[in-house]
């Protein structure tokens, strides 16, 4: 059995491409399935990503498809490449990031197999668990596909070590340029705070913050704690903060050591994105708020008094 993991990466400062941390969790899922693990890096000038991938513990080989067609991980071009490479692999895995979710179903359809989305555990080489109905039910799904196509929810698997491996790097693949899509531009929020999905502590705000300016209280607390900052859908829809901060069923899924929910009522769609956090703190002035039902520590208080005080004491 050999497993192909599609590496995800983002464009960092000075267009330097950086391996997405969720790739490490995806390799961890592959290791649970068992067998040789190969990693595919599709891009243009993504040599740094390939080097990083070669160092991941447990990776036997890194395949690099370096071509202008793959520059922005456009699914119309990357999916045919992955489909072409799929021969000989038992599983194709990608992180359930926006790139993974964009590319992999296109691969599955090209291979005429059903995909299994966002697995949170590996039961055996063909059986996996995944949340459905916003995490209100957990389905056990078995696949009889010759090549199993799977996205991995990072929070379900502890990442493997980023260092320690020394995989061979091999160039592969003809260029697939479908010629039906092109990259126009990107607007990436610049922040010195840890990324939401990999932060050890996350502070999130909801409608209770009342406006975007009041998020400064959360930023101050977050900076003191070295935390990432998230938000509920209500806060994003109200325009308080940008959409990439949304935590929930259809936003980011996080599972930090500590999740501090501030002025968030706790709709099931929000809980779906954070209920696997190790410790949950809820601060809300409404003592009936559903968030208290999942919180390890609840504080019924006015957040505008509690947050500055908390910032002083931590």
């Amino acid at each position, binding site marked *: 059995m050999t497993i192909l993991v599609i590496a995800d990466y*983002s464009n960092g400062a000075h267009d330097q491409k950086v391996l997405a941390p969720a790739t490490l969790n995806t390799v961890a899922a592959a290791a649970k399935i068992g067998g040789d693990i190969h990693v595919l890096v599709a891009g243009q000038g993504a040599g740094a990503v390939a080097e990083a991938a070669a160092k991941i513990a447990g990776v036997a080989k890194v395949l690099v498809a370096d071509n202008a067609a793959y520059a922005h991980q456009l*699914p*119309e071009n990357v999916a045919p490449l992955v489909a072409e490479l799929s021969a000989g692999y038992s599983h194709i895995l990608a992180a359930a*990031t*926006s790139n993974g*979710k*964009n590319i992999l*179903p*296109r691969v*599955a*359809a090209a291979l*005429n197999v*059903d*995909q*299994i*989305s*966002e697995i949170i555990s590996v039961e055996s080489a063909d059986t996996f668990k995944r*949340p*459905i*109905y*916003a995490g209100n*039910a*957990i389905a*056990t*799904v*078995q*696949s*009889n*596909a010759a090549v199993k196509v799977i996205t991995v929810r990072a929070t379900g698997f502890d990442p493997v070590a980023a260092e320690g491996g020394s995989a061979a790097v091999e160039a592969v693949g003809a260029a697939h340029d*479908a010629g*039906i*899509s092109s*990259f*126009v531009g*990107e*607007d*990436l*929020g610049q922040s010195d705070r840890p990324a939401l999905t990999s932060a050890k*502590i996350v502070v999130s705000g909801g409608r209770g913050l009342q406006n975007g300016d009041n998020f400064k209280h959360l930023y101050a607390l977050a900076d003191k704690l070295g935390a990432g900052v998230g938000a509920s*859908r209500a806060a994003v*829809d109200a325009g308080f903060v940008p*959409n*990439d901060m949304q935590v929930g*069923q*259809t936003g980011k899924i996080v599972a930090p050591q*500590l999740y501090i929910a501030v002025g968030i009522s706790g709709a*099931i769609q929000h809980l779906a994105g954070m209920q696997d956090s190790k*410790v*949950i703190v809820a601060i809300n002035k409404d003592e009936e708020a559903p968030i208290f*039902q*999942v*919180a*390890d*520590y*609840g*504080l019924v208080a006015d957040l505008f008094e*509690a947050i500055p005080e*908390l910032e002083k*004491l*931590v």
Partner: protein
Amino acid sequence: MKVLVSIKRVIDYNVKVRVKADHSGVDLANVKMSMNPFCEIAVEEAVRLKEKGVATEIVVVSIGPSTAQEQLRTALALGADRAILVESAEDLTSLAVAKLIKAVVDKEQPRLVILGKQAIDSDNNQTGQMLAALSGYGQGTFASNVEISGDSVAVTREIDGGEQTVSLKLPAIVTTDLRLNEPRYASLPNIMKAKKKPLEVVTADALGVSTASTNKTVKVEPPAARSAGIKVKSVAELVEKLKNEAKVI
């Protein structure tokens, strides 16, 4: 320009989900069903394109049980011109649904197909991408803005670090994210008018599509319950607990 919108009948997003005692699935008996929220956004986007004079006809399609006609009527009340139900009793996988929609696309030849990015029941986030693969079309997934110009569409997408814009040749597939628009409510006169709009029912068999699956759901269980913790009385007590009991700061 003809626009095709695909919608799904799902459990209403406000309903508390209960897993069946025999772990065969989720209990849907006597539960309120609605149009999937992302599909409402897809219908709204098509209606806005028509109001702008970009779309000339909106065809709405659903793959599902006979009762999905309710959601198709809702879409007609919101502004779609006609509806197609591909009737299927079984629980289909995203690939099977994508193949059935592809058959409708082949027949209707729309320039743009708009779908929700994911259904809130299966949480798969697959159908739009699969339909794009099967059709050989470009895909603009998780869309927060859609601009048609000439024979291409610019789609702004919600991605992990922010936003990305891609340009796709028409025909193309778009899947909606939450911020694309705010869906309207159907007015009573439009609900009445929708009853007279055409709604065609076809079977999956008649479309000549195989819905065989490589996936099998073995069981469905409730998630491990998180036990409720304690209430602290002050910020000072909270900090003390986090430092000494939970040891997370």
